[in-house]
């Protein structure tokens, strides 16, 4: 940790110009009153944005009750005043002219005849809804939230937003909180919570998942598929490593990035996080590692919007603080960056959330904007051979599906081959559900086949769960582009 940053430790309020969590904050999605009240139980120790400690808990600034419920009426946005925070998306149906392009792009609809597809889940279902008389069709739980429909739509229908809202409403109002499905989905979407416990004793946790019958038990009791092997927990988390290392090795008030590592790079693949730090420091960036919780991606996909909002409040607070200190926010997981950029402002109305959205980037994307990565890579040499690269759906949505190929095109000693534009099929927690496993593998079949056909015997992707699926389907080791970049630029130089 640098002196510059530790000075900030005592600061009560964010730097000038940094928005506070404000009184304009209103829940924009359906949240039940109890869940909302429960979210207020955090301590207020004002943890600084860059402590680099092991804990991402204990964030501050619970949303205080709004002292003035009727501020300047001109400041009203209709979404602010829906009872219970319900966001009514019926008007989103105005943009749909029924062309069905979204349905043809949906990987679930392609393999599951029972699934009515994104057009029904989105604009059609919303249009048929009424305020007092609405029930969400349970097929919404078959949507994997790959969000391909968003990019497919020629008319900018907010499809994934409609799906997320509908799923949240379905889970909150129609799903039994005692059902096995709810409990299972709650556990899956709160992966971070369980991972944080497991990583206290990673060897024990890893051993436990390999006890014969452990996954069978998970399937029988929870409906988590026994076909997959549970991901291994790292013996040292990324944050532990970061602290042991003494935080940032480069100080540079002019080039700062705040790293949103997400859960998987922290608990399971810290080598990705380390690669990010080393590559960015190679380029002279000061890396900050603010306290953070799950990006919310698995929670959105399971309709756990209250959980997602609680995590978002922490993330927005700390990341916005870092932005106030001059940093841009960098994620190495494309689903994390998509969540912060798109889903946060669509689903939540938290003060500063738009600033976060505008200042968030994927790691490689960011470097390619500000540094001449391709020229540097062209001068480097590695000894890796060929990679079978899969672009995650969520990378596609951000226009990043070509970046790995373009970045490494001139790299000596490595060849990146795109295995096509199919979806891997796992979609985070989706492929972990026993009843969705077969659909997940059927969707992934194209990708497996193309990987087998590709020259490389190592996979590459930005998304941790796509990596799980790639490994599961082919047995290949799978890397993140940052790891190759690290070898090319940091180790090779």
């Amino acid at each position, binding site marked *: 940790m640098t002196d510059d940053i530790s000075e900030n430790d005592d600061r009560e309020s964010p730097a000038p110009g940094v928005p506070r969590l404000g009184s304009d904050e209103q829940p924009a999605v359906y949240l039940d009153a109890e869940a909302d009240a429960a979210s207020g139980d955090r301590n207020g120790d004002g943890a600084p944005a860059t402590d680099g400690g092991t804990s991402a808990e204990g964030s501050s600034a619970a949303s205080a009750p709004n002292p003035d419920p009727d501020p300047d009426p001109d400041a009203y946005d209709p979404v602010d005043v829906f009872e219970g925070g319900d966001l009514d998306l019926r008007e989103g*149906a105005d943009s749909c002219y029924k062309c069905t392009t979204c349905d043809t792009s949906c990987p679930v609809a392609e393999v599951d005849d029972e699934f009515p597809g994104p057009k029904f889940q989105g604009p059609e279902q919303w249009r048929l809804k009424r305020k007092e008389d609405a029930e969400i069709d349970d097929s919404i739980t078959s949507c994997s939230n790959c969000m391909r429909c968003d990019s497919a739509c020629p008319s900018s229908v907010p499809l994934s937003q409609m799906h997320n809202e509908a799923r949240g409403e379905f889970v909150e109002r129609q799903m039994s909180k005692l059902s096995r499905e709810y409990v299972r989905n709650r556990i899956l979407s709160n992966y971070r919570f369980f991972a944080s416990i497991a990583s206290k004793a990673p060897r024990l946790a890893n051993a436990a998942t390999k006890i014969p019958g452990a996954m069978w038990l998970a399937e029988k009791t929870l409906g988590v598929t026994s076909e997959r092997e549970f991901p291994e927990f790292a013996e040292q988390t990324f944050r532990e490593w970061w602290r042991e290392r003494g935080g940032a090795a480069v100080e540079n008030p002019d080039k700062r990035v705040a790293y949103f590592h997400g859960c998987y790079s922290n608990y399971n693949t810290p080598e990705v996080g380390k690669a990010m730090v080393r590559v960015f420091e190679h380029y002279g960036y000061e890396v900050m590692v603010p306290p953070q919780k799950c990006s919310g991606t698995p929670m959105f996909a399971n309709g756990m919007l209250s959980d997602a909002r609680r995590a978002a409040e922490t993330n927005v607070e700390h990341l916005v603080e870092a932005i106030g200190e001059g940093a841009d926010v960098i994620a190495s997981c494309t689903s994390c960056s998509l969540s912060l950029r798109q889903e946060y402002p669509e689903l939540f109305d938290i003060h500063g959330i738009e600033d976060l959205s505008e200042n968030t980037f994927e790691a490689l994307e960011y470097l390619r904007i500000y540094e001449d990565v391709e020229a540097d890579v062209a001068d480097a040499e590695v000894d890796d051979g060929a990679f079978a690269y899969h672009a995650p759906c969520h990378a596609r949505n951000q226009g990043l599906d070509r970046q790995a190929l373009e970045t490494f095109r001139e790299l000596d000693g490595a060849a990146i081959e795109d295995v096509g534009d199919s979806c891997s099929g796992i979609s985070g927690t989706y492929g972990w559900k026993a009843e969705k496993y077969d659909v997940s593998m059927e969707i992934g079949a194209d990708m497996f086949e193309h990987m087998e056909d590709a020259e490389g015997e190592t996979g590459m992707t930005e998304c941790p769960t796509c990596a799980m699926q790639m490994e599961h389907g082919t047995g290949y080791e799978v890397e993140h582009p940052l790891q190759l970049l690290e070898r090319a630029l940091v180790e090779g130089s």
Partner: protein
Amino acid sequence: MASTPHVVVVGGGSTGCGIVRDLATRGVDATLVEKGNLTHGTTGRMHGLLHSGGRYAVSDRKSARECIEENMVVRDIAAHCVEETGGLFVKRPEDSEEYFREKLEGCRACDIPVEVIDGAEARRREPYLARDVEKAITVPDAAVDPFRLCVANAADAIEHGARVATHAEVTDVLVEDGAVVGVEVEHGDGPGKRSDHGPEGESRPAPGETETIRADHVINAAGAWSGEIGAMAGVDVAVRPSKGVMTVMNVRQVDTVINRCKPKGDADIVVPHETACILGTTDEEVDDPEDYPEEEWEVDRVIDELAELVPPLADARTLRSFWGVRPLYEPPGTGTDDPTDITRDYFLLDHDERDDLPGLTTVVGGKLTTYRLMAESITDHVCEKFGVDADCVTADEPLPGSEDFSVLRDYMDEFGLRSPVGRRSTQRLGSRADEVLKTDEPNPVVCTCEGVTRAEIRDAMTGENGAGADLNAVRIRTRASMGNCQGGFCAHAIAAELHPDYDEPTARAALDELYQERWKGQRHALWGEQLSQAMLSRTLHALTLSRDADPATLDDDVDFGAFDEGPENGPDDGARRDAPAGADTGGGR
């Protein structure tokens, strides 16, 4: 015949349908003739408001009282046609405080249950209301589907022995010895113009045929057209038709009826109707109820003015606009200049007393909300003439579809439909949901915008009081093709359901007719999203379906021989290519 008089009712709007039901349930032998399909006239061209009476509480308390009473009756007898939305009279800062108070007092005086809420509460209930709306009066307005209401009345009449003939235009009123003795009608000869239901065993006239229907009494309930019917009988009925535009929005911006609390009623109401909102309206006197200009300024005006109440309307998607003609009437000599000042009350004209022409009664004026009351009073009048002594039951007996609402439970599981589709279908069908939706056959959604399944469409074609091949009549029974795509994605699929009961030319002509009707209203919404929609629909129909120049619609047979053989068809694959180009392959399609 002497014991059971035969009464012909002219006009298949809400009034005529209400009368024929009332007559039939009192045991009178009744025939309804309508030149289009049911609701073809003004009834099918209104905004679907079931008045609480609040609208008339200042200017016309008699009408207001009738409205609130009938409002409650219709909710009971036609529950499946009514959505209990509630209504608001909202006051903007520039609207008169005094009028607001008069409105409130008027409502209370007429026993209309009201409540005053402040602007914040009004916006809590309807978040899209303008920020400067100061306060509002809540009233029990509701939305009513005039199509299903009329169809249900007609269905009940048929069940009680009446005959209902649509596409049967009155071409003459028969007068013999100074009395009206019947009508002459011409039956339509287009596709699907054969909807003529009544007692079994009677021979039905063929399409295009002229039929003389003799009657002991004729009731002229032709609304805006009643002047023309009167003229055929040689009497003067001074209807003053007044047009008004209604603009249909793609989604419901509000779930409550929003009225503006000001005197004079132009562009002052938003009615949530099924999946849409209907904006209304204008009030302009016209000469001919069939032929009047549909003007752009009217559409602009309702959108602009109502956006003052509900700002998102300014940029929201409109699907179409349609015009209705009010059959306003005032007794001769009243001389009102402004059509908005003409009373909305109804009048019963006994031509025997008025013009010394027995055998004819005309009913004019009035409004849909009080259709049943009007029907009751006309039926009382006619029954008295013939000494029929029977009580009116129309206020107590539920209409078909509203008898028993227990089927509303568990419909999804039973019918295997997805939630919003099942919910909307069941609301449309009411107690008939069971018999219509329970099917062993596959039941796909045919109209995805409105969530209408094949079973519902087939029922509308072939069921009791079915519409046959008249797809516009199928449309008003089901709402199929009334959503965003206006039939672009489903009109042909609906027409396909005519197979095998109807032949291909009939299905084709029926499709064209439905598609044209959908296009008619869309012409007034061709900007923004609906323009994109119309272009996509055109592309689908003209190009993909070849409907702009389909060889199958040509008079001549297609000369298949003029086509070349194509690269794939070598001489040895045989089939049907032995005729050289130019030879007379004739043949068919």
